[in-house]
């Protein structure tokens, strides 16, 4: 059963002058990894913004568990149901890795008794020990910051993880490690992981690859 469904989705910039997404239809399931690929300007990041509720489509629907996300409170949707890993990570630099993760839990409705312990556990799961967890994020490497961003999305246990170029700034070793985390989340935690990427390495590893060519999402 699909957790995420896109129906006849259209989006354009400049008041309809520049059509980016035209009549997109597809479904995403839990327990699988997806890669959305395409040349620059084909609307990959736009699609991710629409799926994360940061933007609204011109027409069409995005269904989360068969509910139109426009009917769901956008804050609740982003803080509980989908986890977004932004291309620029969007971590709060004045906070530590641990505080960034804790803040996400605070914002969400998740009920956890010991948030700090839970955050440390998640950070450990993505490969960051307590010493690094207590560092300000600016004092972590790019790969470590990427893990913090992943940990932040995992902290409130969303069904869907949306990642925008998550390995864009990482070396091959870190790219492999991050990809392994995503695969693990899909297989073991039954998450639906959707990755917007240019990376061939990722496209080779995920369950399904979609190409956003000619504004149509194609099942590879």
């Amino acid at each position, binding site marked *: 059963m699909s957790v995420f469904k896109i129906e006849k989705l259209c989006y354009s910039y400049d008041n309809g002058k520049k059509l980016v997404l035209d009549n997109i239809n597809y479904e995403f399931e839990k327990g699988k990894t997806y890669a959305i690929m395409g040349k620059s300007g084909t609307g990959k990041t736009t699609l991710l913004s629409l799926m994360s509720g*940061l933007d609204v489509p011109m027409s069409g629907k995005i269904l989360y568990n068969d509910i139109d996300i426009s009917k769901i409170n956008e804050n609740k949707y982003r803080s509980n149901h989908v986890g*977004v890993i932004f291309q620029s990570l969007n971590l*709060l630099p004045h906070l530590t890795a641990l505080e960034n993760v804790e803040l996400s839990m605070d914002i969400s409705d998740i009920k956890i008794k010991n948030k700090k312990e839970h955050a440390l556990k998640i950070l450990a799961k993505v490969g960051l020990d307590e010493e690094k967890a207590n560092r300000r994020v600016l004092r972590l490497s790019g790969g470590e910051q990427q893990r913090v961003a992943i940990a932040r999305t995992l902290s409130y246990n969303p069904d869907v993880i949306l990642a925008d170029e998550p390995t864009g700034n990482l070396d091959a070793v870190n790219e492999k490690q991050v990809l392994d985390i995503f695969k693990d989340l899909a297989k073991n935690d039954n998450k639906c992981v959707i990755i917007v990427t240019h990376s061939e390495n990722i496209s080779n590893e995920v369950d399904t690859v979609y190409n956003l060519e000619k504004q149509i999402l194609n099942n590879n």
Partner: protein
Amino acid sequence: MYIIKNAFKSITRSKIRNVLIGIIIVVVATASCIALSIKNAANEVEQSYLDSYNVTAQLSLDRGALRNNAKSSTTTTETFDPKAFMSNVKNVSAENIMIYGVSDYVKSYLLSIQTNMDSTTLTKVSDTVATTNTTGNGGPQMQGRVEFTNASSGDFKVIGYKTLDSMTQFINSTYKITSGSMFSIDSTNNSCVISVELAEKNNLAVGSTLVLNNPNSAAESYTFTVTGIYEDTSTDSEFSMFSGSSNQILTTYTSLNSIATTSNLVESTKLNIQTNATFNLVSADVVDAFTAQLKTKGLSEYYTVTTNLESFNQSIAPLENLSSFATTFLIIVLLIGGSILVILNMLNIRERKYEIGVLRAIGMKKHIVLSQFVIELLMVTSISIILGGVIGSVASVPIANNMLQSEISSQETTQTEVSNNFGGGPSPTNATQGKNTMMRAFGKSANVDYVDKINAVVDVKILLQLGLIGLVLTIVSSSISMIFISRYTPLKILSNRT
């Protein structure tokens, strides 16, 4: 709870900015605290002074109205006869005063009558013609003379008092009995007290008798018995020289009224009796109502009611100026302080735009983001307001009193210049409140008893007002955050950054 934690972290993260904001708010709070305490204390002192102030009213002849009426009622072919015209103006008699005095607006009234008489057996002390008003609190009573007919002259002024209260010079110790005693106020046997100068000049002692004549009819004479001799202790040399107190013969209202009744039997030579009255009103608020009531009771249209509120207003003028200055200062400080805070907050928001975008992108609600910003400012404001309140409470009393003294000096300089240039201006003095002077007797304004001290302490009311100012400043300066946060979407903020 996490918002407070985040707010606290943000404050400690941006120490310099928050210290700067804190300093500005401390300055605003200190200035506001001082201004509020001055304003508050000035208002309280003014109100309490007004409450304790004995508001008095006198009846004055409105010479302007008389003149205008005389001109309008005289045709070009007629010759204006002021005496005839004045005779038509209805006089205010002692009986009228007693009727007017029975009023809800009047606490009490002081009544005396007076006339000038001659004597063939007495030698006057000086050439001064006594014209002193001696009733009431030293104010100019019956500034327009009640009687205009039979305008007689006389070397001796005879004053008849209705009550002992009316003998204000004895009450405030300007006059002191040095020999004998005061007559009984109810006596009808022409008992009197005279000045020590008059007694010495004529070898009079307690128990002596003196004979006074109607200046219009030498054959009409009245005998008075001296029961006491008084001394005028006034130290004002100007006053002593012209007061004419030496040639006064003070007696009871009943005695003098009896003489007047006898004299009135012959219209052409009757004594010119003047009525002096002061009404002690229940409050300053009833002046208009009392005036209206007097008109309904038959007071002539040519009389006006004058009060001592001018003196009150002069006394509190420095206070009012101080209060007005404090209000203006408060407004300016709040406007400047508020503007600086708004600008600092705008810079703060610009600086933290990314943070807002991230928080909104990960699902923090708008109002929670806004709450965090408001709480941050509220924390800084609260600490600063407390500091400002402490500094203000220490500084307010000395600053307020220094400013008041400066204001009084300024007022005194102005009054002195008025006095020097025009004469008759109020003489500035540091006299204590309530001191009565006789300057008014000569048409000279009374000394101004300035309120020269206020207790501008910071109390709960001012602290609450300060708290309110802090809250308003926080809300006003947070309004920029409110607009920004409600207008921008997280995607817009983050994509701009990207």
